[in-house]
């Protein structure tokens, strides 16, 4: 069974490529879910105090929180979800945006890379739930 917390030691797009390779190597979606769940579990904990109505991204069944900070051009995000698979997806998105310059963040590209992993087909409910709103919010922040 894959264990991937090391992928999150540095939040960089290179590590997103590692996830892509891992997904490629696995032939079973159940194992891919385990990768996602592990990714989520490895996400640095978000301080409870930051989980407020203001940081909550609207979704129905699961909750997503996103707390952005800015250091010059670079964006930093603390994020969490109460659902494990969603949290894994949140971690995946953060791989693409964490500590990046706002000008380099493109929500459409994020969606495309998630789609390329087969996530929109296999995790269809997330098209309309918190994750989509989270990507949209990141896009607004970077704009």
């Amino acid at each position, binding site marked *: 069974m894959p264990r991937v917390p090391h992928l999150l030691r540095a939040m960089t797009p290179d590590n997103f490529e590692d996830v892509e390779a891992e997904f490629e190597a696995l032939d079973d979606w*159940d194992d891919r*879910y*385990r990768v996602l769940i592990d990714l989520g579990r490895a996400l640095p904990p978000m301080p409870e105090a930051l989980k407020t109505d203001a940081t909550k991204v609207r979704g129905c*069944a699961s909750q997503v929180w996103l707390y952005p900070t800015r250091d010059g051009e670079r964006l930093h995000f603390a994020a969490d979800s109460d659902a494990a698979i969603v949290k894994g997806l949140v971690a995946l998105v953060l791989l693409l945006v964490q500590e990046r310059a706002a000008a380099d963040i493109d929500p459409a590209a994020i969606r495309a890379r998630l789609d390329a992993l087969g996530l929109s087909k296999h995790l*269809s*409910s997330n098209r309309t*739930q918190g994750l989509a709103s989270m990507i949209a919010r990141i896009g607004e922040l970077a704009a």
Partner: protein
Amino acid sequence: MTAPLNPAHSHRANFPGLADNWAYLDSAATAQKPQAVIDAIAKGYGPDYATVHRGVYARSATMTERFEAARATVARFIGARPDEVVFVRGATEGINLVAQTWGSSLKPGDRILISALEHHSNIVPWQLLRDRTGIEVDVAPLTADHRIDEAALIAMLTPRTKLVAIAHVSNVLGSIADIAKVADAAHAVGALLLVDGCQAAPRLSVDVAALGCDFYVFSGHKLYGPTGIGVLWARAEILNTMPPWQGGGAMIETVTFAGSTYAPAPQRFEAGTPHIVGAIGLAAAIDYVEGIGLGAIDAHERQLAALAREGLRRINSVRLFGPEESAGIVSFALDGVHPHDIGTILDESGVAIRAGHHCCQPLMGLLGVPATARASFAVYNDASDVERLIDGVKRVTRIFG
């Protein structure tokens, strides 16, 4: 898992929305539509279409007859008179209508009694009324197995209680309230009884006279009918004293700039061009369920719910909510797994359930969970759907194990 099922399981073929290999277990949110309803809607918007009540041509007269026949069908379905049946958008609008019209006569200090398992639609309209008029809203507790505690509810009635408003069948737990018993007790203190029948109308034979309630509301789309149409039934002597709600066409008798007089009920509460085809589609849905028989549908769903509970109970980490004896709705949780994750993996397995608070946040607090997973059954489900649910939940436990 081969318990005998009544012939109701063969009805799946009547539902074009049910793709092969899709276990649709979210009918408590909204039911799939039988071909008969889809055909009635197509005919209504096609060869039969015209406005109602105002046209001076044959097509409109025919449509008016069909629309009023739909009202008569609804009335017969719940043992009421047609002039007691108000078409609304859904149960939510029906409850808001009562709160805003009948409720406007309440005085500060008057009380409304609801239960802890109510849907937000049967909580928030009363809170809005409380904010406008200074009434109090009391909440009756549940039993240990998550039914409305009727004895406790009855003990909470006071001479200032003007209305009891409860669900006939819980949308989360499937528990069934003893409406007749609550009606007697409410009337004994001079209170009226409003019943949210959303989850009862699709599975229980409803007779408002036998239930003894004063208001009964339900939505068409949970009863295999169209969205955007629902029913408020109110006892005639109450409905006739209620002031108008929305003003506009169709609800008036005469209009001058000095003032207007209003049509008698139910038209007084149906301002504007009504959802004509919705009403016709709802009548077709009622014909459909009556053709099968509510008793057969209820027995079929209870069997499936019992099978589901039995299968889920064998999975160690499953927590089941609600009473053993419940209408076709089963809520559950898995230790350490968010219901959203359960729903996501089940979707992968071709099983559609609801995961969330089901518009019952206070109830979730009582159950001690932020959300539940809910499987709800309908006439088109069968034992293979239950099997896929159980297999899917086992898959969840393997992935999260």
